[in-house]
């Protein structure tokens, strides 16, 4: 059998995925999952926009947190990108983006409480790390010859301004706009930890079984994201950014005593706080590793690998839905709607819904991750397939898929999957908050038990795991000589 390097790597990933599936808990434990699913479906097709109080406020807060957080992240990320040639800046950026926005929110909640700053920083900090990396990539991609021909003695500032920024600007703007969409999703999900955004209302409607309210909230959210490019016009964006901080709500005031206590007492490992010395610290650490970190890491890895393979399968099924090589405009229209829904629903929200329906196991998380990420990559690959011109007598249908399109699209497909690998792992860890035994579960339990020292250690472990996977993914991409365009939408 002909086996190119990318096929061999895929087979390896599939093998690891199957092996992980063997260890994964994928039972459906709820008594009547299909009845609840039907009820939810009926709720979505009969949305109730009127009964829910404060739906407008929920949307307004979701938008306000997204704009403020993304704007702050974008400016800080740009400044970091300028200093990106220093290793310490690169490591700092990798570290802050390796911690999920919900973890940041959980940390800030402990000392800022329900102050708007908690939500804004939870988005701004990880986004700054992502912006720093992508902005720096974009600035590096700019044609270097204009800078080379500048007269000797040109100041660095003028050289940057004339020879770098203008050609990078459209790419920077495109990427920032894409990130704004992600910011809306992040902002909505922050509601699940108690901030006044969409997720908060979704959770409360769901737990009371008001499925028509859930349907209304979801539909409003899809409309918000699908119409983003119509209402978030480049000329209007500055006004939104100036206005957004005024619509964050008041929340609760910051108690500065809590902030001080958090840093000087709460996060100090308890053996040190209690004066148990190095021996005590060693026992504390080994106990934490054995009972929380290792099981958490194991479950996170298992879930990630299964979800990654299923994401790939979803992508391969999804991309023909929007490809102009299959079916007419009507079918493609339906395909677009399906993919918009799949990629606009945050994994966390989807996993929450499926978990309510199917009961606690890894299955809801796997399906949620695969649907969301498969929707994103399927959209990108589908767009890519539309750029391919086939000869007029090219085969049709199944043969066209296997002989003409798949071989041409396989490398970008693998590249996007590898890009998403780290993101899937970040999400997997965070889904633990919902009660699946990944790292997030142990972080959340530690916080519930007011053991912030344990929580911090576990968050640091999660961040290291993400950085490790990111490194492996980069190595594999280099090995396969994969290079995707600078727009980096796969991020």
């Amino acid at each position: 059998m002909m086996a190119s390097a990318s096929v061999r790597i895929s087979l390896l990933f599939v093998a690891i995925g199957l092996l992980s599936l063997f260890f994964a808990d994928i039972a459906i434990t709820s008594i009547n999952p299909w009845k609840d699913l039907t009820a939810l479906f009926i709720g979505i097709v009969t949305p109730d926009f009127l009964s829910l109080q404060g739906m407008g406020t929920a949307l307004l807060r979701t938008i306000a947190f997204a704009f403020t957080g993304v704007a702050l992240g974008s400016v800080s990320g740009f400044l970091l990108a300028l200093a990106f040639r220093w290793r310490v800046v690169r490591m700092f950026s990798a570290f802050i983006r390796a911690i999920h926005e919900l973890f940041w929110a959980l940390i800030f909640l402990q000392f800022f409480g329900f102050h708007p700053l908690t939500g804004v920083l939870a988005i701004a900090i990880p986004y700054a790390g992502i912006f720093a990396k992508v902005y720096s990539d974009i600035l590096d991609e700019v044609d270097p010859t204009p800078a080379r021909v500048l007269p000797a003695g040109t100041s660095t500032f003028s050289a940057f301004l004339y020879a770098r920024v203008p050609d990078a600007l459209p790419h920077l703007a495109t990427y920032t706009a894409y990130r704004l969409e992600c910011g809306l999703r992040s902002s909505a999900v922050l509601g699940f930890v108690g901030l006044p955004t969409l997720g908060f209302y979704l959770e409360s409607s769901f737990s009371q079984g008001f499925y028509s309210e859930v349907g209304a909230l979801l539909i409003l959210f899809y409309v918000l994201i699908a119409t983003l490019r119509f209402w978030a016009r480049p000329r209007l964006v500055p006004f939104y950014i100036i206005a957004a901080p005024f619509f964050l709500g008041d929340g609760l005031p910051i108690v500065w005593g809590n902030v001080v206590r958090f840093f000087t007492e709460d996060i100090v490992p308890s053996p040190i706080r209690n004066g148990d010395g190095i021996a005590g610290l060693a026992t504390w650490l080994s106990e934490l590793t054995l009972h929380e970190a290792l099981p958490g890491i194991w479950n996170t890895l298992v879930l990630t690998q299964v979800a990654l393979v299923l994401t790939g399968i979803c992508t391969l099924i999804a991309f023909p839905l929007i490809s102009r090589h299959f079916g007419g405009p009507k079918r493609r229209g339906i395909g677009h709607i399906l993919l918009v829904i799949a990629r606009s629903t945050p994994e966390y929200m989807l996993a929450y819904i499926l978990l309510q329906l199917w009961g606690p196991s890894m299955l809801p998380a796997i399906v949620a991750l695969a649907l969301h990420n498969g929707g994103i990559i399927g959209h990108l690959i589908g767009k890519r397939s539309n750029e391919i011109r086939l000869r007029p007598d090219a085969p049709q249908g199944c043969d066209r898929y296997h002989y003409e399109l798949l071989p041409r699209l396989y490398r970008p497909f693998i590249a996007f999957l590898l890009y998403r690998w780290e993101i899937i792992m970040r999400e997997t860890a965070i889904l633990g908050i919902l009660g699946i035994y990944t790292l997030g579960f142990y972080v959340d339990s530690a916080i519930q038990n007011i053991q912030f020292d344990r929580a911090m250690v576990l968050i640091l472990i999660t961040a290291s795991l993400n950085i490790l996977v990111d490194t492996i993914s980069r190595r594999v991409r280099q090995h396969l000589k994969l290079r995707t365009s600078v727009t980096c939408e796969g991020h």
Partner: protein
Amino acid sequence: MDALRLNNLTAAYGGQQVLGPITLEIREGERIGLVGRSGAGKSTLLSLLYDRVRDQAALVPQEQGLVQSLSVFHNVYMGRLSTHSRWYNLTNLVWPRQRELREIRPILEKLSISDKLREPVEALSGGQKQRTAVARALYQNANILLADEPVSALDGPLAHVVMGIMAEAYSTSVIAIHDIDLALRYCHRIVGIQDGQIALDAASDRLSPADILPLY
């Protein structure tokens, strides 16, 4: 300026020596034409020369070095970024200064692209882009002009006009050019490069096209 003597210029690519060692003297008031088949090392030699004399040279690289999304005016203005303060440069980027427009417009008129003054470079044709790159070098007004195929995208008469303008503005220059007639007509001295070495170095009034042809 004094004569420039550049000793032992060498270039390696992937561990293999592709150019030199070459020693070249550029005398003041001398226009040198670099000829040779593509891949012989002309661009590499020009690039090495530029690295040595950066503080007194203007370069027109083969890739032109234009910022595609900036206007022709701004691209030409970039030739003198070093003579203005950063704040002047910043404000001029947003609102082009009348003073700069007055200086740059005549250069573009000579090159017949003044109607493109405010157009972004990406909207121009290949020949117009090439003239924009030449205009930037003219505006920079350095001591030496180094140009790599500066008229390759221009048709007959226009190529002569642009070569003439460059000769008038820069008394000292090194121009890589594959058109033998243009080289003989606008350069005092012809340096032929073959396999990374100087294979010919003579005054152009003592050469005929037949002497240069074997290099190709």
